[in-house]
């Protein structure tokens, strides 16, 4: 029998319901693989083997006792990794920061709770850039995660631990968050499938806040169908998040027929710029041709304000972060460094608890919001955001999806950008506009470069049309093998 950790979630569910495997066996297989491989990949910040075995045992008992097997929770006994930005009640949640080193949330994030109710088994919490600020996991206060395809490369970020865990088969699927590309870019760098849902599609309750008008909860998996399976359970309105929308989540009917007739794919010229790695461009164009051969029509389009997305994002996101992170005051939770009065408690707890990228963004955001500069920076950025959003609205009058590279390059070397924040920000140039517009996007693997590093395409849809992205990604994956490639470990 092939190793249990190679099974997709759907395959594992078939084996579980047929009684050929137990959740205990499946969970143990992942825990064994984690014990063997995670010391060199470092995908996990916190392991929860005891919790996992307890949940797996309970899942097996529930399955055994159930009279009506069709009424069982849909993911009963399936292991899952969770990015350490999402709260799970009474489980340490660091958000990759020293300031939350000993934080134990008294509640669980809605997205996690819905998956727990659906029967998942928690393997642990995955590594990330501190407060989800970064594109490589190098900003984690604890350690850097290594790309399983090449251990000297970054896995991408900020959800790098989750992406690395999925491709290294240290979890069948993992949760992430995406504020400016933090699901799609690591999915691309690690060669897995990742969804960044529409803003407002999945509850942000229990997601530690970074940029509240941009933050989304996403999923990594081995293919589009596994990702959709989890996404459909997580999505939908939540009374605990006033920005989660009461819009029905359509169930995607995955046909086995890879026909894309009638689908209009837009290709924006602004995403094929100078500086893009030629192998990346070639793989993206080949994937688009493949979609054309499956019946899609391809249209050149323009998103004229694309080049402004990076400066807009790096004013708006830090501004929102500077307000959100004001809650770390050393009083209610988090590191508390008390020397004297209240003001020094604030300043010392924050000065010592936050890492350098977090402080940099708080400073930038504070400046952009400060008296005398608000209109010139934050105000102007919000207006240009309107123009960026309108670019997408106009484009989606003519096309159903837009296809672009996820990132201009494949995974860069650990340490390559560590002294140049602006160079690191440029890695996000193709993913940031999507968060500013709030539209959904899926990243899927479409090839490798000459150094055997994965290349990802992102497909963008109009608001709340994740179903269309899943359908197209699935059709592509029916006719290609890229998503099945795994690194030798």
């Amino acid at each position: 029998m092939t190793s249990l950790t190679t099974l997709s979630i759907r395959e594992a569910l078939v084996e579980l319901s047929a009684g050929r495997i137990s959740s205990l066996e499946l969970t143990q297989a992942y825990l064994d693989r984690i014990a063997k491989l995670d010391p060199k990949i470092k995908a996990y910040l916190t392991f929860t083997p005891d919790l996992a075995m307890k949940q797996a045992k309970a899942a097996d008992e529930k399955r055994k006792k159930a009279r009506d097997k069709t009424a069982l929770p849909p993911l009963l006994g399936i292991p899952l990794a969770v990015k350490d930005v999402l709260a799970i009640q009474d489980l340490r949640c660091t958000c990759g920061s020293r300031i939350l080193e000993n934080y134990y949330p008294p509640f669980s994030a809605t997205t996690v709770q819905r998956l727990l109710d659906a029967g998942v088994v928690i393997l642990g919490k995955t590594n990330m850039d501190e407060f989800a600020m970064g594109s490589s996991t190098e900003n984690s206060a604890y350690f850097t995660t290594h790309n399983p395809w090449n251990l000297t490369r970054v896995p991408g970020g900020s959800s790098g631990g989750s992406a690395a865990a999925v491709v290294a088969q240290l979890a069948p699927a993992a949760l992430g968050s995406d504020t400016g590309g933090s699901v799609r870019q690591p999915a691309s760098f690690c060669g897995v499938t990742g969804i960044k849902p529409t803003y407002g599609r999945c509850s942000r309750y229990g997601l530690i806040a970074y940029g509240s008008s941009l933050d989304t909860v996403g999923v990594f998996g081995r293919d589009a169908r596994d990702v959709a399976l989890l996404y459909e359970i997580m999505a939908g309105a939540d009374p605990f998040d006033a920005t989660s929308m009461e819009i029905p989540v359509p169930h995607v009917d995955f046909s086995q027929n890879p026909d894309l007739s009638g689908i209009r794919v837009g290709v924006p010229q602004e995403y094929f710029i100078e500086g893009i790695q030629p192998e990346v461009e070639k793989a993206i164009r080949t994937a688009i041709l493949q979609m054309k051969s499956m019946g899609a029509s391809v249209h050149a389009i323009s998103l004229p304000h694309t080049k402004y997305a990076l400066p807009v994002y790096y004013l708006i996101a830090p501004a929102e972060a500077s307000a959100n992170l004001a809650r770390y005051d050393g009083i209610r939770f988090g590191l508390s460094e008390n020397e004297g009065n209240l003001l020094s408690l604030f300043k010392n707890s924050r000065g010592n608890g936050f890492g350098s990228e977090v402080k940099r963004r708080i400073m930038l955001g504070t400046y952009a919001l400060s008296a005398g500069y608000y209109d010139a920076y934050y105000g102007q950025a919000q207006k240009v955001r309107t123009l960026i959003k309108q670019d997408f609205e106009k484009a989606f009058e003519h096309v159903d999806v837009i296809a672009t590279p996820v990132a201009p390059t494949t995974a860069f070397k650990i340490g390559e950008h560590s002294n140049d924040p602006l160079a690191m920000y440029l890695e996000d140039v193709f993913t940031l506009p999507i968060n500013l517009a709030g539209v959904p996007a899926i990243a899927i693997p479409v090839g490798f470069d000459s150094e055997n590093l994965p290349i990802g395409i992102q497909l963008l849809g109009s608001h709340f049309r994740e179903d269309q992205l899943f359908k197209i990604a699935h059709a592509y994956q029916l006719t290609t093998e890229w998503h099945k490639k795994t690194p030798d470990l």
Partner: protein
Amino acid sequence: MSLTIQEVVHIAELARLTLSLEEVEQYRDQLSAILDYAQSLKELNTDGILPTSSVLPDRSALREDEVLTGLSIDQVLKNASKKQDSQFKVPPVME
């Protein structure tokens, strides 16, 4: 554009961050470079363009005014570094 040391110290004060002298100098250079990059936004004419603060349609999320169970005092205080008599304990605000 170039920020001054005094400006960086002022921003750190507003942000309630203790910074080392080394950090102040580093952030002066890095923030200046990032703000330079952001100058490109000024070339766009945005007269008459409304700012976007949320991508969602304007709406108010309302619910019935029902009493729901919240967290217990123990749960709320669990992560506090200092507490006394079911309350957070803080240093003097004014001396």
